[in-house]
């Protein structure tokens, strides 16, 4: 029987982390290498093999074009979105347009959807926890940035499905962090979560008391994260190099990848030391067969100077969020820092300065989100859990009305579950149908908001405009599923939708991917067995080849000997064919025959010697 354990996965832009609550205690599950986080990277190697995590990261320099990182920036995005535009410029891998105005990634001539790529990472996290727990783990709570819209959340859920995971809940990263912070502590206070991760910045305000976590307000910037800090360092290096040598390193993909690695490393080092040496020998070769090196010092002060505006922006967003929630800075009793970037001393001091208090040091910025996700998983499924998360809807919901305006029915930051209804009337004489466009966003213009779905209510009575009344009802369930119903108040006729597939993948596509991935899992597992068999066969082949001349000399004289050598040859060939065909069953059979022959050969040789 499959366990009812629920893992919590922090699917990060740069790193992912998985945790589980066991015997009431949440803990992070280390991967095979003993690391608590796994790089969110997927690559296709030259032999067509799929590589995930640390292995993918290690080969990223030499295989940059086929290594995907920061796929989270693309998930659930439209082809024309700003995120995709900027990724097109900076990502070494190929991003192409998908069939539904979505985004696909091309690796070695194979096209992958973004949820597929994310699925490989989720699958890796699933495997890590299954190896650790020794049983299958079918369910997960996955975190996303607070600012993710419905499409991005849906796409993340799809990724879970492709990975063979039932994602029972999507929660916001800062919320998860607060859960981990408040877990097991009897506290009653208002806290701010400052989350500066690899790709996004989020700020959330929560009220904690008696095991209940109420999200009051949440906001953020999806274009602000550790990678922007890295890019500042890269730009600085590139600029310096260009000034010295007149060569733009960004044009060379391999050089760019090395710059990326070194920038990230330098940034991390400068959190603990005051200066660090950047050394990239043979970074590029000039046309005259001569290699250039990049060597320079980067100080913490310089880094802070390069990135001060980024930090200022996060502080501005904090101020705005507090203002919108009508909360005074002085009401915040603790600040939780989340995300690797919050290790930077300047970030910590900026936060302390703004809130007027030292940020909480008790939580691990890289692990806290996964821990929180696992706590929510347990809160939902474990009856002993005494935790309740009162989550909010991150964006306003409404419909389009005459004039192309957006009429909000549910405001952002409203606690879910929630519902709201409103009566609308017809705008034309003898109007017999109304089209309901369900939108999500904050703009007052309908077209500037995300379209979640649409439907038509027909059969309205012919009447002068304004006479026929249609009631529109919105409902958001506790797990964030939006349903919309429209009812003709006169006839009681109804029409409704539940907002689901907006991730850029159709149901059919997802089903196919789920199937394909299952095959892949079988392939990987049998592949490992095959490797073992091949290894054994190759060893036997090596030995038998070595013995052939001797054996032939000895037995070729007899009639049977000729036949035996021929047969032995055939067995050897059969084994080689089986290896080439990667067919485990034939190989097993052939190896058996091969070993029999080998034993005979050994016998012949030793007999002669003896």
């Amino acid at each position, binding site marked *: 029987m499959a366990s009812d354990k629920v893992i919590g996965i922090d699917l990060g832009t740069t790193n992912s982390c998985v945790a589980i609550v066991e015997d009431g205690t949440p803990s992070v599950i280390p991967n095979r290498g003993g690391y608590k986080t796994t790089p969110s990277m997927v690559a296709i190697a030259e032999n067509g093999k799929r590589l995930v995590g640390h292995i993918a990261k290690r080969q990223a320099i030499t295989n940059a074009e086929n290594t995907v990182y920061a796929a989270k920036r693309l998930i659930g995005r439209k082809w024309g979105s700003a995120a995709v535009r900027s990724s097109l410029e900076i990502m070494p891998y190929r991003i192409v347009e998908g069939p539904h105005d979505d985004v696909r990634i091309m690796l070695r001539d194979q096209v992958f959807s973004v949820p597929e790529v994310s699925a490989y990472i989720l699958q890796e996290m699933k495997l890590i926890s299954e190896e650790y727990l020794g049983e299958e783990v079918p369910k997960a709570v996955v975190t996303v940035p607070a600012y993710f819209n419905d499409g991005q959340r849906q796409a993340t859920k799809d990724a879970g499905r492709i990975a063979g995971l039932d994602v029972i809940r999507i929660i916001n990263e800062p919320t998860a962090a607060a859960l981990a912070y408040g877990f097991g502590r009897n506290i009653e206070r208002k806290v701010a979560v400052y989350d500066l991760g690899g790709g996004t910045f989020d700020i959330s305000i929560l009220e904690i008391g008696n095991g209940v976590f109420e999200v009051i307000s949440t906001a953020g910037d999806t274009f602000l994260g550790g990678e922007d800090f890295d890019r500042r360092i890269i730009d600085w290096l590139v600029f310096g190099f260009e000034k010295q040598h007149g060569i733009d390193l960004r044009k060379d993909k391999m050089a760019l990848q090395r710059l990326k690695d070194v920038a990230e490393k330098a940034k991390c080092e400068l959190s603990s030391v005051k200066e660090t040496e950047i050394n990239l020998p043979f970074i590029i070769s000039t046309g005259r067969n001569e290699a250039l090196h990049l060597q320079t010092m980067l100080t913490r002060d310089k880094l802070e100077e390069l990135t001060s505006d980024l930090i200022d922006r996060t502080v501005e967003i904090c101020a705005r969020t507090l203002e919108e929630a009508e909360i005074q800075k002085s009401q915040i009793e603790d600040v939780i820092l989340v995300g690797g970037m919050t290790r930077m001393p300047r970030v910590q001091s900026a936060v302390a300065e703004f809130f007027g208090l030292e940020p909480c040091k008790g939580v691990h910025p890289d692990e806290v989100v996964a821990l929180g996700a696992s706590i929510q998983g347990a809160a939902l499924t474990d009856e002993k859990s005494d935790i309740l998360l009162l989550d909010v809807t991150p964006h306003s919901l409404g419909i389009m009305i005459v004039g192309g305006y957006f009429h909000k029915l549910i405001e952002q930051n409203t*606690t879910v579950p929630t*519902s709201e209804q409103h009566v609308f009337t017809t705008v034309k004489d003898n109007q017999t149908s109304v089209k309901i466009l369900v939108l999500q966003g904050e703009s*007052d213009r309908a*077209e500037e908001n995300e379209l979640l779905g649409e439907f038509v209510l027909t059969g309205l009575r012919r009447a002068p405009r304004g006479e026929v*009344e249609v009631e529109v009802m919105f409902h958001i369930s506790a797990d964030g599923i939006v349903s919309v119903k429209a009812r003709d108040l006169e006839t009681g006729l109804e029409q409704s939708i539940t907002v689901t597939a907006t991730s850029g993948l159709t149901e059919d596509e997802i089903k196919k991917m789920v199937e394909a991935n299952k095959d892949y899992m079988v392939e990987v597992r049998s592949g490992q067995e095959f490797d073992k068999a091949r290894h054994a066969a190759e060893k036997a082949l090596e030995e038998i080849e070595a013995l052939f001349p001797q054996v032939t000399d000895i037995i070729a004289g007899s009639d049977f000997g000729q036949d035996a050598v021929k047969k032995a040859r055939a067995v050897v060939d059969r084994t080689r064919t089986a290896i080439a065909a990667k067919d485990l069953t034939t190989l097993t059979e052939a190896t058996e025959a091969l070993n029999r022959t080998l034993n005979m050969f050994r016998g012949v040789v030793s007999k002669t010697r003896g």
Partner: protein
Amino acid sequence: MSNVPAEIAGIGSTQQRLRVSPGFDPLKAAVGPEEYFVLSRIDGTQPLREILLNSGLPVDRCIAIVTRLRSIGALLLPGEAAAPAAAAPAKTSSPIAISRAPTPMKPMTGSGTGPVKRPSASFPAVADAPRRAAPAQSSDPPTTGPVAAAPMIAQHDLRLVKPSPEELAALAEHNDLGDAERRLILAIARLVESRADAYALLGVPAQTDVRDLKRAYFQLSKEIHPDRYYGRKLGTFGDRMALVFEACARAYARLTGGERARASSPAAQDDDQPQTQQDYAAELFDRACNVEIGGDALGAMKLFAAAIRVDPQLRYLRRAANCALIAGQPRTALEYAKKAQMQAPTDPSAARLLATAFRAAGKLSDAEDVLVMAMALKTENDALAAELRHDLAEVRRLLAAP
């Protein structure tokens, strides 16, 4: 001309000069465009007869409208001080063109309080203000534990006196809930249905302070939030629980103030508060929106202009610019769009509006400049990014054309 009667039933002589009742809120009453139009003519100086003749509407129609306005408490006769009983306030009107208060999502039986259809589930607190001071009748004396000094916990009457057949069926139904859990949900459902005030709904005494309210609400949430029953068979209690929790969350939001409270129940503010300049502008703005939706963009422009004179905030400027475009006043649109963009220089949406206004005013290269700039402003709003791209392509096409 002569078909204006000397008297109208329920109002009297058409020579009277009627006034608009000062407390009357056309938004809450959700009047239609024609009604609003007639209402705007009534100024206390013109005799009713003049208004009937000059409205441009058929006299019969106009009389019917005046009669209706009078019946909903909009109009005062000379000498009258207060409006006759008005219809219940409706939620903010608006859009596809609006009419009146929403009806309950699931009308419940046995309510019987008042003839006005109100959504008991969703707006429990709206009309409760006058009753707030009254002690929470329906939550009766707590049945368990001492009241004094103990930490605040929500107390509801779980006895379910005289259960309805529906309640009896619910109590007997086969599901995973315990008796106390069922009783609590049914008890709160009763309060929702009877439109008990926010305090009663949360099971706390009236005027409980914010801190205790929070504790009571948190504790109650642990018992009635659907997540606490995740994966369990709930039967008919699934819907009931969502309904009950939503009502409590709303009650809590309303009592503790903050943006969410106002967002979800705009009518919650006290009426006797003096109106500020901002409130006045907001009212003008709401009226303008209504007039615009009623199809009178030109008329709406005057009201938008008035609202902006009092309080030139971004939202008003944007809407006014949009309306001006619809009204065919590109120069006015451009003026407002420029002001809006100045207030939000890094907002791509404001830039897009400015570009649209430039385009309408025939200044294509200005539109292109603004759009290119807007594209450079990164936005997480994909829909907006797509619109910008589309607009830019369009403008460039127009620029390329001879």
